[in-house]
């Protein structure tokens, strides 16, 4: 089967049997190489629309490697918030910058404000660019700014600077 044929066949396979998703998502890189990341999101989005699909999407996350988890996080806007939130919280607990960044994409609208603020602060801590944080300008509130101010003071005492994007956010919002 050529790579071009594989994706439609995998979609059909998942429609027929959602439990086949775990195997198909795992083998995507072997079939598609670098194109597998986008293909995985396509498959997961289709899976999410099936009856019981969201639970299968969550299953792919919990049994997934980093690549599969990143794909699930990208597909989370297609699943109900109650399913999405535990996965987002797990990704935010990780120390993998790719997972933390992905958890603050569009699906982060499902997170409560306190969890979201901690996520943004963790981005600053890990040096993850804030440009990828979904809806940052609208959602940033005085409490987040106070938290950033506290981190800035600690960094200042240690002779270290905040990343430029966080420093800019602090300056803009304090004006």
């Amino acid at each position: 089967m050529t790579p071009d044929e594989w994706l439609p066949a995998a979609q059909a396979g998942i429609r027929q049997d959602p439990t086949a998703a775990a195997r198909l998502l795992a083998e995507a890189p072997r079939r598609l190489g670098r194109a597998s990341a986008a293909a995985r999101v396509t498959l997961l989005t289709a899976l999410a629309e099936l009856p019981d699909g969201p639970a299968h999407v969550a299953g792919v996350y919990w049994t997934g490697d980093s690549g599969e988890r990143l794909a699930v996080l990208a597909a989370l806007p297609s699943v109900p918030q109650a399913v999405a939130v535990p996965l987002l919280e797990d990704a935010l607990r990780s120390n993998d910058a790719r997972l933390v960044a992905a958890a603050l994409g569009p699906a982060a609208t499902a997170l409560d404000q306190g969890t979201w603020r901690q996520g943004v602060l963790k981005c600053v801590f890990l040096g993850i660019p804030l440009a990828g944080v979904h809806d940052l300008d609208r959602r940033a509130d005085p409490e987040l700014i106070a938290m950033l101010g506290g981190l800035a003071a600690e960094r200042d005492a240690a002779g270290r600077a905040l990343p430029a994007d966080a420093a800019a956010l602090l300056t803009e919002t304090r004006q």
Partner: protein
Amino acid sequence: MRIFDPHIHMTSRTTDDYVRMAAAGVRAVVEPAFWIGQPRTNPGSFADYFDALVGWEPYRASQFGVRHHATIALNPKEANDPRCTAVLDLVPRYLLKENVVAVGEIGYDAITPAEDAAFTAQLAMAVDAGLPVLVHTPHREKDRGLRRSLDVVAESGIDEGLVVIDHLNEVTVRAVRDTGCWAGFSIYPQTKMSPDRMVALLREYGTERVLVNSAADWGTSDPLLTRRTAEAMLAAGFSAEDVDTVFWRNPVTFYGQSGKLDLTVEPAPAATFAGSSIARGGS
């Protein structure tokens, strides 16, 4: 000099090791699943360990420009605890993962019936998954364990070119050379092989179908002994080409049989600052 360490337990090593390894030319590693000093007592402990081998550890390695792949299996020592037998049910789904390039370490520890069962079952899984196999030879009764391992491998029907028999020495290498299996050698500071003894064996047996590793883990071991052995080869008159065969092309050929070896060097993640080590997130 480019080095591929085909057997090293990075989970047990520090970021200082990654820095020193990268500086010494180590660009790629394979981390076999094995025991971790403290015996585990339930499958969940293994699931978390396997998840780290396909999740956190490759990410950690990438921060230092080292490509990390894994092998997955229930190891022979812990196969003897009936509470861990269900780990065998977990293994197949990990064998599908992107960076899992072999089944291992399997083989014998104390040569028990439980070890027989786990060894045979996991050889069958390797055949099903089309993956190579990493066979550990025991510390005690090595010769008996080796001969029995070769018999079990032969009975499984797996292509011998997909099998490496590891931790060999002067006494055990001949029996493996008489088969189509690859010969693996672990270079240790005190036990197993030393760089000079390894060079003598390469002189006697040649550089084909040979994998040389540090097998560095949580015990007394040294992740730079691959580099030291490569230097000993050069000092003994081997060419740079020979060194590249042993320390790069051979592991690429062996694990490449999985169809999953990816040695593309990814750009350092944006989250990493020049010169910093692993960032430590909020608690």
